[in-house]
């Protein structure tokens, strides 16, 4: 069943010209408010059983025994899946079959690679029976010492960072640049392990029918999931039907199908019945990726004129003991500030954790907080206002490559956000401002940047005999608003009003929309939709302009435009014909056409493509107790064409709040002896609550970009974090004069330096 979402349109939705650019509310909002949006774990096919994972309490070693008999004896338990009792897989789950294939633990051995790893799965008639069965397994272990933290083991230079970026990049001579500098800053910043913590846990409902598999699971990449699952189970990817209409957040953790989801499918195969498997919160701290801890050293040289002479950015990161993902933290320094010399490098070590993976702005978020802090330190060392310093070192071309930017309205972002914030009244020195109640007040800023990426995506456009249209694409709505924004693009692509377009999405039987990641989904799928719409309109125009009974006869395909369900001659607007009339005369029930969206390699090699922004933050700090409170944030962002300003504003708010969270709240605490994460729950792993979130302003700066793609879209999913964490950290310094270089900023770091 393909979900179809009907539009309820309030007067705010009245169309004024193009659908693109309208601040429509979410089309799925009413469903969600009424609890009618069906998430993966809401499905209960007949005969379904519940599977619960038993997890390792050690971080490294082997399972030597499991009391399977005790679990099996428990009333309601149907089966216990273990390394010695499980369906055979067609492919080694540790085989690196493609760059997106990360190793996973699906009971292939008794080895334990990290705490919270699956070591067995109990399948039962009820969730409670499966849960108790898992508790009764009482595992025993052969324990090896856990490696925890950034100094746990020998380090090495990773082969690549991120997805295939070089681990070291040199541009110019950084050593010479530093030697020639009149001011040099060297500082080390540390960021902690962080976990995605989407509110919806990873869940799967899997049902086999012969060699066909039907699954409900939240996914940011259904076709990648089909390929991975098909490979593991030895069935064609097309035999796998995935429904993923709604995600309760993904943030990268649902980009690739993870071990627990495969275990759910294996469990269904083992028992021959549909099975539901939902991770508990603490089980999300391990097998579904995380942001690794980093230790970053920045060396910045500045000449007597305030111009940068060099940026050297070195990042040490962790990866797992058994796979390779390296947070590209230093790469953020490639594109932001003009300097004749850039050197970035990475260093890695293996620890006994799950494999780190993409987490909202992977590399950019960690790198930005260090770079923006260091730039702030450099500005102060030079006695220059932080904004003036950034403007002085404004990059007119991409510093590491010399390529021109496809568009870059960062100057406007700085100007608009600074004005809204009132930045010009900021004293240069720290600890100069107090409010009426005597709290220290500090103002800080950071520059936001995120690459404008595109993946590959497809869409199918349909025009029906009644003159309405449909657009089909297997896109992913993680909560960011794809159901709405992509429908808006669809309506414009088809020359129809939004109500006249059935927008179908969220299942794997629709055209492959690629992956919802890299802030690239709207750009990728939007352009696929745009091209599919253009193709079907061209087909329709072909029917009309070659038919001598049509008023458009002889106009040629390029001689007509589509508008509100009619084709018009470009050179004579009154000559037009409705879609329905054209199809009726041709005797067709519908016509369709496909389109794809992908980056243009020629434009990509010629231009540097990035979204930019500027974030300003005010904090208040208790001068004696050291407690910090963010009291306002202003961000201005230039991210190409904005499809839906309301949704974009929400994305940017969310990113800025995440940045504040990065600066002040989030940290996974691991016991240094056992390797177990001690705060794997939402009570103790802190993210901001409503009361932490200050009044916020988001300004979107118009930016016309003819190079990124036909629609001019850059993407807004991740940029809001970058710049924001640094802005908050810099504001804390400005309030207190204390530079905290370990994140999150803790009260103990401030309290000893404060006295009143």
């Amino acid at each position, binding site marked *: 069943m393909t979900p179809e979402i009907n539009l309820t349109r309030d007067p705010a939705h009245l169309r004024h010209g193009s659908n693109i650019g309208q601040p429509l509310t979410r089309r799925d909002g009413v469903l969600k408010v009424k609890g009618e949006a069906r998430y993966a774990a809401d499905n209960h096919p007949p005969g379904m059983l519940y599977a619960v994972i038993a997890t390792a*309490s*050690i971080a490294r070693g082997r399972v030597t025994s499991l009391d399977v008999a005790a679990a099996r004896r428990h009333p*309601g338990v149907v089966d216990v899946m273990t390394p010695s009792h499980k369906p055979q897989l067609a492919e080694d789950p540790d085989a690196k079959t493609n760059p997106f294939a990360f190793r996973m633990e699906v009971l292939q051995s008794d080895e334990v690679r990290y705490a919270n790893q699956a070591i067995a799965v109990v399948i039962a008639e*009820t969730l*409670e*029976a499966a*849960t*108790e069965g898992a*508790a009764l397994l009482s595992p025993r272990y052969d324990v090896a010492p856990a490696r925890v933290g950034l100094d746990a083991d020998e380090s090495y230079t990773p082969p690549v960072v991120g997805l295939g970026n070089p681990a070291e990049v040199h541009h110019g001579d950084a050593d010479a640049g530093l030697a020639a500098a009149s001011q040099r800053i060297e500082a080390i910043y540390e960021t902690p392990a962080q976990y995605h913590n989407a509110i919806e846990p990873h869940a799967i409902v899997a049902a086999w029918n012969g060699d066909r598999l039907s699954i409900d699971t939240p996914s940011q990449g259904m076709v990648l999931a089909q390929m991975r699952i098909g490979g593991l189970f030895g069935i064609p990817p097309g035999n796998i039907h995935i429904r993923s209409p709604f995600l309760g957040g993904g943030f990268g953790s649902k980009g690739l199908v993870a071990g627990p989801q495969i275990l759910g499918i294996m469990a269904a195969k083992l028992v021959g019945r549909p099975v539901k498997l939902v991770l508990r919160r603490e089980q999300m701290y391990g097998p579904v990726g995380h942001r690794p801890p980093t230790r970053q050293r920045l060396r910045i040289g500045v000449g007597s004129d305030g111009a940068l002479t060099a940026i050297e950015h070195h990042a040490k990161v962790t990866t797992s003991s058994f796979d390779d993902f390296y947070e590209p933290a230093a790469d953020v320094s490639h594109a932001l500030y003009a300097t004749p010399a850039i050197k970035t490098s990475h260093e890695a070590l293996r620890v006994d954790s799950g494999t780190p993976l993409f987490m909202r702005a992977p590399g950019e978020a960690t790198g930005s907080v260090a770079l923006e802090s260091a730039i702030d330190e450099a500005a102060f060392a030079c006695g220059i206002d932080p904004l003036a310093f950034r403007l002085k070192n404004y990059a007119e071309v991409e510093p590491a490559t010399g390529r021109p930017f496809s568009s870059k309205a960062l100057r406007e972002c700085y100007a608009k956000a600074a004005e809204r*914030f*009132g930045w010009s*009244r900021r004293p240069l020195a720290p600890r100069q401002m107090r*409010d009426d*109640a005597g*709290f220290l007040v500090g103002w800080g800023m950071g520059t936001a940047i995120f690459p404008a990426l595109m993946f590959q995506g497809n869409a199918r456009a349909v025009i029906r005999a009644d003159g309405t249209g449909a657009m089909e694409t297997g896109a992913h709505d993680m909560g960011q608003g794809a159901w709405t924004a992509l429908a808006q693009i669809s309506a414009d692509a088809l020359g129809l009003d939004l109500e006249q377009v059935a927008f179908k999405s969220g299942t794997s039987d629709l055209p492959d929309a690629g992956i919802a990641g890299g802030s690239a989904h709207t750009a990728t799928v939007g352009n696929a939709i745009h091209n599919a719409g253009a193709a079907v309109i061209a087909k329709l125009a072909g029917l009309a302009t070659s038919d001598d009974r049509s008023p458009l006869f002889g106009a040629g395909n390029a001689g007509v435009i589509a508008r509100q369900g009619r084709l018009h001659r470009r050179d004579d607007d009154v000559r037009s014909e409705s879609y329905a009339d054209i199809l009726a005369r041709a005797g067709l029930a519908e016509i369709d056409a496909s389109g794809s969206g992908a980056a243009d390699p020629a434009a990509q090699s010629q231009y540097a493509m990035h979204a930019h922004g500027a974030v300003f933050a*005010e904090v*208040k700090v*208790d001068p*004696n*107790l*050291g*407690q910090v*409170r963010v*009291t*306002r944030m202003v961000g201005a962002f230039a991210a190409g064409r904005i499809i839906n300003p309301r949704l974009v504003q929400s994305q940017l708010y969310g990113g800025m709040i995440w940045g504040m969270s990065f600066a002040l*709240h989030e940290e996974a*605490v*691991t*016991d*240094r*002896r*056992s390797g*177990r994460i*001690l*705060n794997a729950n939402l*009570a*103790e792993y*802190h993210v*901001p*609550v*409503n*009361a*932490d979130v*200050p*009044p916020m302003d988001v300004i979107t700066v118009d930016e016309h970009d003819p190079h990124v793609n036909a629609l001019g879209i850059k993407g807004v999913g991740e940029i809001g974090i970058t710049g924001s964490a640094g802005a908050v950290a810099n504001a804390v310094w400005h309030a207190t004069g204390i530079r905290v270089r370990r994140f999150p900023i*803790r*009260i*103990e770091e401030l*309290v*000893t330096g404060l006295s009143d």
Partner: protein
Amino acid sequence: MMNFDYVRPASVAEAIGAATEPGSVYLASGTNLLDLMKGGVSRPSRLVDVTRLPGLDRVERLADGSLRIGAMVRNADLAHDPDFAKAYPAVAEALLSGASGQLRNAATVGGNLLQRTRCAYFYDVASACNRRAPGAGCDARHGENRLHAVLGWSEGCIATHPSDFCVPLVALDAVVEIEGKRGRRELSLEALHRLPGDTPERETALEPGDLIVALRLPAEARSFAAHGRYIKLRERTSYAFAVVSAAASLRIEQGRIGEARLALGGVAAKPWRARAAERLLAGASLDAAVYREAARAALADAKPSGDNAFKIELAQRIVVRALTLAAAGTPALMPALPGSPFSSVSGTRA
């Protein structure tokens, strides 16, 4: 599933009978107990639901001027009772600084007194914890312990008591009324919670079957109404336990402190009454130097149990702050952010 009996007794006597058997525990709203059961930290064989026992949900003024609060009164109801907040402002502020709105709506007065520590090693059943498994050892002692106790801890346990509510209560000489196998008795709240010593598993002075039926604030507790505050440092503005907290209540007579009541939270396995500081403050002038001296006295016996030396300094500072704010007077309205040093701050436009 993990099977257990669930009984809903009709009377206090019946409840005590049901709860006396080994493996039985009382269930109030379960905001703590059910989490502990889900995590396998607590595996009772019988839950005795006391939420519907008659007569335990009333707040009444007794003839001697004391206030008797039934054990099943909800935290939110008590905190939002205007008469209560006016008479015992530090208690109301502490209640509203705790947990979240949803939890306060569910949690009961009696249950709050008996909530368990939030030490991560207590919750992690794979860790050694003397409180959970006597004799197992204490993995917190040399583990991640920046938020652990600085007062009254032992080598066997460095956990803290998490309650905000109990901190001003212990300062105001609250008394708990207990029904048990041998009838009714009373205990000062200060004597209810135990320090760990060699027996950290014995968290309270309660005996099997004992049921807290009411909490009583003595008549004298009202005499601090004009100068009562609860200040709590925490790592986010709501839904976070105290790093350190302090309840200060003063009776000011002719410009001097007639009597002071002071207690700290987040520093020990029990709400920590600072009697030495109170003695220093009695009769003293309203002076920052006096508050600092009192703070030093309150923390005189403190020592770090791990990476938490900062808490000793922080606790002294929060004592000074709580005394300063209490001396300035109870706010006419409950602060928008109860317990926060930023209680009056909101975002401002430049």
